[in-house]
């Protein structure tokens, strides 16, 4: 029987690094979800309302991203772009770009389904009071769509936050990277990984319950 003696002091000593790592991971996820949502809305509207030829590139983009491992995309953007003389992105920016493109593909599908599920009756009511086409989108269709897609938003934010662990592969000091480093330096294997896991778990749980409350508050159609 192997005995393992826990020594949590190594975690407390590195609390500030964990805190920074957690903040960094969350920022990466939130920023990428934001940029991904902008991409997603643009692509979804191009597919639903745009010209026919527009739906091809969108389809290609979505399918390419959804059927390629994220880690591969991370490497491709980080190592590949400089080969094409696109080298003005540092590693964090490169990762944000990758995660945004990744989120964008998923959000495209979320918003496309959201747009499709909005009853025609709302658009007709918006027409009837004289709103112009872009006003109908701005004041009726999009607000309703956001409320419908709020649950998908929460799920994607949690997924993206967990996916930020892949940034460790290009040495961005987020949680997984920090845990690995502390593990390597102190040989406190269990403590490092358990601490990181606990932080992921608690954070995801908190995000989920906070957004659940938001969903209940803003649910549009009940």
């Amino acid at each position: 029987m192997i005995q393992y003696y826990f020594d949590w002091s190594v975690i407390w000593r590195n609390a500030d690094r964990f805190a920074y790592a957690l903040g960094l991971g969350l920022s990466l996820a939130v920023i990428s979800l934001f940029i991904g949502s902008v991409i997603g809305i643009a692509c979804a509207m191009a597919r639903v309302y745009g010209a026919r030829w527009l739906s091809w590139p969108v389809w290609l983009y979505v399918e390419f991203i959804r059927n390629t491992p994220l880690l591969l995309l991370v490497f491709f953007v980080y190592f590949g772009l400089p080969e094409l003389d696109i080298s003005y992105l540092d590693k964090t920016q490169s990762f944000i770009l990758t995660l945004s493109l990744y989120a964008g593909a998923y959000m495209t599908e979320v918003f496309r389904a959201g747009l499709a599920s909005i009853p025609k009756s709302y658009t007709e009511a918006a027409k009837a009071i004289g709103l112009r086409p872009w006003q109908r989108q701005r004041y009726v269709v999009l607000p309703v769509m956001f409320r419908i897609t709020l649950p998908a938003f929460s799920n994607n934010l949690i997924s993206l936050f967990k996916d930020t662990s892949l940034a460790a592969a290009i040495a961005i000091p987020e949680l997984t990277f920090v845990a690995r480093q502390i593990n390597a330096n102190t040989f406190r294997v269990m403590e490092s990984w358990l601490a990181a896991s606990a932080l992921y778990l608690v954070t995801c749980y908190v995000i989920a319950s906070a957004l659940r409350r938001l969903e209940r508050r803003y649910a549009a159609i009940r």
Partner: protein
Amino acid sequence: MGEEVLLRARGVRKSFGNVEVLKGIDLDVRQGQVVSLIGASGSGKTTFLRCVNLLEEHDGGEILLDGDPIGYRMEGGKRRRLSEAKVSAQRARIGMVFQQFNLFPHLTAEGNIMLGLTKVLGKGAAEARDIAGHWLERVGLAERRGYYPYQLSGGQQQRVAIARAVAMQPRLLLFDEVTSALDPELVAEVLGVMQKLAESGMTMLLVSHEMLFVRDVSDRVVFLDGGQVAQAGPPKEVFGNPESERLRSFLGRMHGIFGQIA
């Protein structure tokens, strides 16, 4: 009735695929009149109403509001569709109330009314709120201004929808079977609001199966049959002296539901 003609339809045609739903409708609505369209389902009543507000585009004939053709302009003898902005401006002059209320689900009762006032008519928020409050009071819902549609009963939602349409001060109000989706005990409150509007001089074109209401409130009743006007006139004449067998049998079926109409 010497008032000017507000809405004039001449030879309005509309097909969905191979099915011709409107086969040349002629109809006048004068300023301040209440005109009701009656007829069996499939006779084209709702389609005609939707053409007036450009929710459907008519294929032939013309619909004039205050003398302006709806949805297009003539250019060298040809019909040219108006820009979306112009179409929107035309729609703003016509209010519409729908069978399923169609309130915006993310806005309160007040917000539903304010949206058009601020974004279409360009009123400030404070003025729009006052107007919304005024109309909510007129439809008996002053204390519900902050409620969302899902918090309101069907009858209340429909009254908000009416307030939303009237608040825009349209030249003409369209009502598309506005009580058909309501529980029977909620019909009266909505009809009551419509009756008050009619008495206030609002020009109204309505599609309804509420024959007693149609008889009491209308200046003219138009019976549509198979996409054509089969008989039109004052309610006394249409209900009291139905010319065609189709109208007699239609009214006969309605008697079963509403009791003696004429």
